[in-house]
């Protein structure tokens, strides 16, 4: 059945076209979250339907079989699902899932938002244990003996010594003639990056705000993953204190209480100093908050940490302020005035889901 593979490939091509056309829509829904595997993301697409003359909604009734009095609800939508029999004609409401490579999704995102590729900063060329057997040494195991080199040496030597007789061309290699293949260690640049998703989970960050953060985090991960071979993600939540959490809690936690943003920045700094040293890592902290900090003094402290410690170390620091009913949104203003002219700082206000695409463009559009 090679033929079906061709038709399937063509179908997937069409789906990808659809997806590309609808990417804007996916950028503002949480539909794709939780559908990401290691290398692929499973995307639900409505069955691509050819329009036809067919019956509409008012025929959403029919004949069924089974127990029940008048008024007994029958569970589920009757048109959905089919018996084990076969294909079924009414392709009405099926949702198909297609797998798309993350790489490909990132490429679509890059095209849609016109994102530049990231130039990994500095000389973070880590020596990876790659390498090929392209070197030659004069010692080694027999199994790696380079026959031609060894023979050439032996031949040269025996001619020089005058023992070579062309009529009886016998060449006996001596130990010093032997040459061996050797693995040359090739320094293979491998760029590593770490994303810090830092979220304010104080009482004022509601469900919708968190959803916006979730969606944004998903796309940022997807993009950066396509840019670095080695990407780690660290999730940090904070209210008045900051802590590292796993991905699951990051999106579900709902703390309440005050907000001390400096707690998060201090934790970040500690991580950057101890574990993710800027010599080895490209650093991308993203901080999401509704912009309500505990006190002006704490905000000053944040600005100081950013200016003196974090900004010099990171590739870029992104602050996304999600609008909420309770937040004053003061923190962004404070950052913008307190750190004016700092190139590595990007601050963006996001009013709602529709603003996500713009926020991503602002964050990733500089190619840092």
């Amino acid at each position, binding site marked *: *059945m090679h033929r079906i593979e061709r038709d399937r490939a063509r179908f997937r091509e069409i789906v990808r076209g659809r997806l590309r056309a609808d990417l804007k829509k996916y950028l503002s829904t949480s539909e794709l979250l939780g559908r990401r595997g290691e290398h692929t993301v499973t995307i639900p697409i409505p069955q691509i339907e050819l329009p036809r003359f067919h019956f509409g909604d008012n025929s959403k009734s029919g004949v069924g079989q089974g127990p029940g009095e008048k008024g007994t609800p029958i569970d589920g939508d009757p048109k959905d699902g089919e018996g084990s029999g076969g294909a079924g004609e009414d392709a009405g409401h099926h949702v198909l899932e297609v797998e798309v490579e993350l790489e490909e999704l990132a490429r679509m995102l890059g095209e849609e938002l016109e994102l530049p590729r990231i130039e990994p900063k500095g000389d973070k060329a880590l020596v990876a244990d790659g390498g090929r057997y392209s070197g030659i040494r004069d010692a080694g195991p027999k199994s790696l003996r380079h026959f031609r080199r060894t023979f050439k040496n032996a031949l040269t030597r025996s001619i020089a010594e005058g023992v070579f007789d062309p009529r009886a061309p016998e060449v006996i290699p001596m130990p010093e003639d032997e040459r061996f293949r050797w693995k040359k260690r090739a320094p293979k640049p491998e760029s590593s990056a770490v994303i810090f998703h830092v979220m304010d989970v104080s009482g004022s960050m509601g469900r919708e705000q968190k959803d916006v953060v979730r969606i944004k985090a998903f796309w940022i991960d997807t993009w950066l993953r396509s840019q670095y071979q080695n990407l780690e993600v660290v999730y940090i939540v904070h209210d008045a204190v900051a802590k590292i959490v796993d991905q699951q809690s990051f999106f579900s936690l709902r703390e309440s209480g005050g907000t001390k943003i400096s707690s998060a920045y201090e934790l970040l700094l500690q991580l950057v100093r101890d574990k993710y040293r800027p010599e080895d890592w490209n650093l991308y902290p993203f901080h999401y908050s509704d912009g309500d900090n505990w006190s002006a003094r704490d905000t000053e402290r944040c600005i100081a940490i950013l200016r003196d410690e974090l900004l010099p170390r990171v590739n870029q620091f992104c602050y996304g302020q999600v609008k909420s009913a309770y937040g004053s949104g003061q923190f962004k203003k404070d950052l913008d005035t307190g750190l004016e002219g700092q190139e590595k700082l990007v601050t963006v206000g996001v009013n709602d889901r529709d603003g996500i695409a713009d926020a991503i463009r602002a964050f990733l559009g500089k190619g840092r």
Partner: protein
Amino acid sequence: MTKRTELSAQLRHEAARIERIARSVGLDFGDVVFEMVDARDVNALAAYGGFPVRYPSWRFGMDFERLDKGRQYGLSRIYELVINTDPAYAWLVRTNSDMEQKLVMAHVLGHADFFRSNVWFQPTDKGMLDRMADHGTRIRRAIDLHGQDTVEAFLDMCLVLDNLLDPFLPLREHMKVRAAANRDPRLAAEPSFEAVRERALTGGGSRPPTFDVLGFLAERAPLPEWQRDLLRIVRAEAYYFLPQRMTKIMNEGWASFWHSRILTGGVLDASEVVEFADCHSGATASAPGQLNPYKLGIEMFRTAEERGLDIFRLRRVHNDASFVDAIIDEDFVARNALFLFGRNGRTGRTEVETREFRVVKERMLADLSWGGLPRIELVDDDHAGRGELILRHHHDGRDLQLTHAAETLKSVARLWGTSVHIETREESTVRWISSDGAEIRTGERPYERVG
């Protein structure tokens, strides 16, 4: 398919035994070629409607994707596939158990008998395998000449219209030709007899008023030859599959009736009885909101047999609609717990509405008549002297989905080259949709019953 597709010696033996029994109980079938395939391959075959030689199209890929996902997740499983050809090809799935293979073989013979005996299948081409291959070649040639995108776009446009058919046309034409042959036996002996039949089927004569809109367009629309050819192919394949739509309940019911009878008549080992019961009741299980054609069909044949009717005659002359009309009565509705369901506007849920026999039967007949398709007739091909087409939807209480109707109409207009119109109804409002292939206009007026 690299693996062997022949049956094992043991299964060949069983196949022969089951065929013998099937013939002895009165089933009438020609050669049936059984082949063994993997679960994945049978999904590919199913996506192609049973014909591995079909033309390339993304839609088959989509159907395959859906079927194969269902298989991987364990949601659906196909046991067999049989096509209406001579010889009939039947694919058994390698993962079936021995008992299941026996059941499936008996089931397949039921279908093979039905394909051969049922009158609605008389006009179908038993050499369809070759014909499909020929279609594939022609479409691939068009792709070579005009490019994949062009051909694909045009093909999609044709497929949009593949239900604008007259379900009764093939049989009507077939009868006419046969009657002529009966009057003049020399005609039947003529080698051109097939050609005559063929011509009747190509829709050359379709003029308004006609329900064979596809045939009309294929012959009369101003199209380049390759496009006309594609449209004819789409039409031929649509008419080929139509009888299967019209007899789904009967066909599955008949095959289930016989697999049940043959297997319990001595083919099963004692050790297989429980597995058989499990498998059979799985196939004939019904969920509350849907009618399982296997279940409904088998019950109808059993009821007919109890009443002393000749079930072999019934399977010969009926389609689903007329079979329901002949068999289902008050007692049947009560015994099989049939009901009409509908959406309760107040609760927003789908609920049992009534078990009143008349209402239930009326609804079944409405759903099954005309192959389950909306009745759309071409009533004028020169509207206002400008060569515009007028289509009329014969409204039976079920409305058309208007957005899709408008999109579909656009395709008609593009094929036809000038404006086309369709008249339909939504409750007591007559609605018009017009399209010139690019734009869509709509209009309405109150409905007045005429005549």
